[in-house]
């Protein structure tokens, strides 16, 4: 799994990923959390996965991390379908290259242990033969701009949310991962610190050629950091492509609604305009009906839109 992949090759490709959740024993109800999600990832690129709660963005993240098994679809990492891997060794070698950082930094750390534990666990689980542990940790910490003396040996409650998130990114750097899945990484951080963490992600991505899947509900953050954007609605990918193209010319009614709702400094909402988020359900239905095109269609280069719901 360690061949060098050049900039324009695909490092991960997701094809028709679907996940249904079943609930209830008698008359089980099926919730489609993700349906037919496909996209590709190239090295050194940040792709943001944008959607509201319940859109299935976290489900996609969990599928990519093999935390849950897909109902259908394939995930190719360096040409190998990782939905099929079963053995522990295969899994370990996958996790050596694909890691995640989640929303709540305080929940990611065990409050009873010092923060160093996350690094020790990495060595225990993935890098047993590593000799220069200390050196490696120091290098990773300096890459996330953390002061070693002020962070190592501390307990989670002694550090701020931003520092903890940086530590978790450093943890991923120890492994020299190919892909980092950042699920709402900065939504719990303060305005003044979140931009620092965001810049750090972009910097690492540039320097190390790491790819980042940036899961967020905040369109402004997605625009700032990512080259490509995927918009999710009710488990479906409704629009994908170059970030600038989507933001300048959103075509799917759901994407349009999102842009209308996002608060921006310098541009006020139209006060007379009726804004009912519920209406989007009907708008989407009408959009699908009114269009002769079917499925996912590329409307311009690197900008595709979903035109039907089947």
């Amino acid at each position, binding site marked *: 799994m360690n061949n060098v992949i050049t900039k324009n090759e695909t490092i991960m490709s997701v094809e028709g990923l679907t996940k249904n959740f079943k609930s209830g024993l008698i008359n089980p109800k099926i919730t489609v959390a993700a349906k037919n999600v496909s996209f590709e990832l190239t090295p050194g690129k940040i792709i943001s996965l944008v959607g509201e709660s319940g859109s299935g963005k976290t489900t996609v993240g969990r599928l990519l991390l093999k935390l849950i098994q897909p109902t259908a679809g394939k995930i190719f990492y360096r040409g190998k379908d990782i939905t099929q891997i079963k053995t522990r060794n295969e899994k370990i070698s996958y996790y050596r290259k694909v890691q995640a950082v989640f929303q709540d930094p305080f929940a990611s750390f065990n409050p009873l242990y010092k923060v160093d534990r996350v690094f020790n666990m990495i060595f225990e689980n993935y890098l047993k033969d590593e000799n220069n542990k200390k050196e490696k940790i120091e290098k990773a910490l300096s890459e996330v701009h953390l002061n070693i003396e002020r962070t190592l040996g501390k307990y989670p409650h002694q550090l701020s949310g931003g520092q903890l998130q940086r530590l978790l990114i450093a943890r991923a750097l120890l492994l020299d991962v190919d892909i980092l899945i950042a699920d709402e990484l900065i939504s719990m951080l303060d305005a003044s610190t979140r*931009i620092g963490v*965001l810049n750090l992600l972009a910097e690492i991505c540039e320097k190390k050629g790491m790819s980042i899947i940036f899961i967020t509900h905040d369109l402004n*953050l997605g625009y700032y950091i990512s080259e490509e954007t995927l918009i999710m609605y009710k488990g479906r990918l409704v629009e994908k492509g170059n970030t600038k193209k989507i933001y300048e010319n959103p075509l799917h009614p759901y994407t349009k609604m999102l842009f209308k*709702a996002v*608060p921006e400094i310098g541009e006020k*909402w139209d006060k007379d305009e009726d804004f*009912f988020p519920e209406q989007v359900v009907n708008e989407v239905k009408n959009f699908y009906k009114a269009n002769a095109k079917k499925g996912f269609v590329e409307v311009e280069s690197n900008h595709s839109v979903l035109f039907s719901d089947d």
Partner: protein
Amino acid sequence: MRENVLEINNLKAYYKILKGDVKAVDGISFKIRRGEILGLAGESGCGKSTLASTLISLTPPLHYVSGEVKLIGKDIMKMKQNDFRKMRLENISVIPQYALDAFSPTKKIKTYISDIVKEHGITPDKNFFKKVEERFDLVNLEISTLDRYSIELSGGMKQRVIMVLSSILDPDLLIADEITSALDVSSQRFAANMLCNLRDEKIIGSSIFITHDLAILYQIADRIMIMYAGQFTEIGPTDEIVKNPKHPYTKALINSLPQVGIQYKDTVLKGIKGAPPSLLNIEEGCRFRFRCPYKTEQCEKTPVREKINDEHFVSCFRWKEIGSGNYE
């Protein structure tokens, strides 16, 4: 000149704990006029929620230290507990943070509403529910929602129920603490619009909208007040604060906001280095000085509130010199 609903002068309220005082609200002054939405912004731990708690329920370890809080002309800090409670129930309403999670899962919305208004000494009779239904209509909620359980509602719907409920007695002041931060962007805009509507329809007299999200405040607030580490930093009309901030902290905060149109590839935004100081037994001095690029010796003293114009106040020694310079 419109009537002042709330007038706060040099309010100090500390958390008194064994180790000393946590000075979470330290010398805050501002006014809210009738018909106004005042946005209160700042980082977590800056004292914005403590300020709200001071106005509603001073529960230990939070203690009132000094200053004046006039609600419709009456100083509520000097009142007897019972009188204050009565006035509070009549005139102030609050939507606390995480109000969405405070629904009882075993009660229908209708029962929940009845229970709450009974506490205010109102019998939830037919007339009362007629009013509730009118308000539900105003926020685009179906009347049948009353007979549903909270788990059946989405976050946005719950927030609307909360907003109807908190404004049902037509309060003079509605304190909304982070009501949009747990919501999706679409529900966020709806909730924010609703607050404006409630104000426009004169259902609520005025509102303090507490949030860390300046972009939302820009949309709905008439004036914005910025707090940092328990201290007042700047207050002024929304457009002035956003487009022509004077305090270095406000400048930094606004410059760090990502907006559509700015990409990392083209412009790298700057955050603010460091973290806010601990407020435990904090000494005199401007509390932003530890992170401020403009600090000098005089910043070891607490800056006084200075007037820029009739509406715009700042507390910084050097605001004139800094002028329109950007935060470095």
